[in-house]
């Protein structure tokens, strides 16, 4: 059987990962994106694969059993507040909600499904935009994330396919949960590019976090200055990804596509535009073909401007993956705008190009770009030295 092009892992039940009507991590983001892609004629029924729930055994590849038990109790309203707090649950960030275990397990199942589609060569690439919950820890929920689908899926990749995995995280927040999960593993390279932890959650992700033991040199962090714009963000991303691929020679790429580095995002202080979100998947895609025989799995992540940023930013991931970026020009489908304009809190965009909102002039731009360039050099110093040694 020949490989099909790209799989889009989704079903309606994924939208049940919802803390409350007012919580910023809203499932409407996913619905808007799917609807936009369908209205555009860019997503057919044959490309959509319905995920299954991850089993306890699969979740247990990364998470502790007692934590899973706590989440299950929370699911049925039987988790006492004191116990919940020990597991990072019941907070404003990750409140307890009915059927939270089932909803979380479905997102995990989706990312595992994406991995299987790609590794069993049914599809070249696969996207599970409901995944990307990169803050989840072994025994603790954190930052809107209950189960860490990417960490679990990468464990699954290691155990079942013995693949060397490159994880690229472009969420504005540091991908701490995935980083610590593979901190001492030389077969999993993690690269997180994010706003510096000076003020922003979770505070980690310094260039000094490079891995430990056998895994030393297999963790990369690029903490960017607040108010970093497209040019500097993309330069850092592209250079880092290309050099890391050349050094690490991955078998498969897992990319986390949080879209909160946009200047309109209410939770962060980076200042990129949709241009960045068009380029991020493009470079990941290029690298997957160059190093991994196409094997690329993309997940979603953060992103809290759900009307003006997310639908277009996440569509780019799928359009890139399925070679349909040419559809993303001019006006957005009328049908989509009509369906959502009444519900939108912010005015819905009219075009793929970002014409309604422009990044204000950022004072200190030269200093910001200069500092980021220095961070990039310091971060890549180690592999540049190793590469030189290898060439000798």
């Amino acid at each position, binding site marked *: 059987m020949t490989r099909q092009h790209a799989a889009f892992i989704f079903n309606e039940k994924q939208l049940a990962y919802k803390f409350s009507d007012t919580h910023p991590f809203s499932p409407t983001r996913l619905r808007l994106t799917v609807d936009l892609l369908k209205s555009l004629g860019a997503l057919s029924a044959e490309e959509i694969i319905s995920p299954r729930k991850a089993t306890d055994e699969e979740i247990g590849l990364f998470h502790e059993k007692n934590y899973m038990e706590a989440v299950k109790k929370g699911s049925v309203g039987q988790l006492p507040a004191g116990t919940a707090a020990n597991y990072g649950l019941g907070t404003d960030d990750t409140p307890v909600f009915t059927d939270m275990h089932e909803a979380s397990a479905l997102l995990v199942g989706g990312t595992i499904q994406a991995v299987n589609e790609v590794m069993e060569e049914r599809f070249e690439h696969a996207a599970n935009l409901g995944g990307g919950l990169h803050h989840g820890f072994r025994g603790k929920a*954190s930052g809107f994330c209950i189960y860490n689908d990417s960490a679990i899926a990468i464990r699954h990749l290691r155990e079942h396919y013995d693949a060397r995995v490159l994880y690229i995280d472009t969420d504005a927040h540091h991908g701490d949960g995935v980083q610590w999960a593979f901190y001492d593993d030389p077969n999993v390279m993690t690269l997180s590019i994010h706003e510096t932890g000076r*003020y922003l959650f979770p505070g980690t992700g310094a260039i000094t976090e490079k891995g430990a033991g056998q895994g030393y040199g297999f963790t990369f962090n690029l903490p960017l200055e607040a108010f970093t714009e497209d040019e500097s963000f993309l330069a850092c991303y592209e250079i880092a990804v290309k050099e890391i691929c050349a050094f690490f020679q991955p078998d498969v790429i897992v990319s986390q596509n949080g879209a909160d580095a946009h200047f309109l995002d209410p939770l962060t202080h980076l200042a990129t535009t949709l241009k960045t979100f068009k380029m991020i998947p493009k470079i990941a895609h290029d690298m997957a073909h160059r190093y991994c025989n196409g094997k690329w799995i993309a997940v979603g992540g953060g992103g809290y401007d759900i009307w003006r940023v997310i639908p277009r930013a996440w569509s780019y991931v799928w359009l890139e993956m399925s070679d349909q970026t040419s559809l993303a020009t001019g006006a957005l489908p009328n049908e989509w705008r009509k369906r959502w304009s009444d519900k939108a809190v912010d005015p819905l965009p009219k075009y793929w190009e970002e014409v309604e909102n422009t990044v204000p002039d950022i004072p200190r731009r030269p200093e910001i770009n200069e500092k980021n360039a220095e961070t990039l050099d310091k971060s890549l110093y180690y592999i540049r030295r190793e590469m030189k040694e290898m060439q000798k």
Partner: protein
Amino acid sequence: MNAEDIMRRNAHPLKGDDTIESAVDLMEKERLRHIPIIENDDTLIGIISDRDVRDARYSIFSDKRLDDILQKPLTTIMKTEVFTVHPLDFVADVASMLSEKRINAAPVAVDDKLIGMITGRDLLDTLVQLMGADQPSSQIEVKVSNVSGQLADVAAVFKDHGINVTSMLIYPDKQMAYQILAFRIQTMDARKAIASLEDKGYEIAGPTMPDMGGPASS
């Protein structure tokens, strides 16, 4: 927090009749810059630094190894006037004493018996921990006038929002009459807390929005 809480218990000591060569090897192997010298009953009798050893080792310009010098006992080069720290000394005092005396390491001793070692690096590690990014958190810095009660009022805002504080520091602002309260709070969404603080008239010293006159400052 006392010296015993942050000291390293394996001080890698040597004896007075050990050779200079053994100190060279130990410093290289363990990447040490200071070695305490003890007697058989752990009594501290001296200290040598990498500089003492460097002064005694052969010159890099000479190809003659000064073997006889390297075989001399450590008692010939060690400093016997040793500044020591008591395990119950407060870490802040240790830091200011090391800074004042311009030294980088001190043995920790009780009744002249060596029990550990504290170096500048241990103090820096402690500083990192105190500044507290070892738990996932966001940072907010609030500028308050230097009068009593401000900390309690600001902290109450976090309490009202059910937000856990993982660490906090107070440090002087450039303007003498003000202090900066730096909180690390356990939430990814600090918007509500920041809005409440601003409503109550507090100045947020960070994160700040540069004056861009545009929509991003919302």
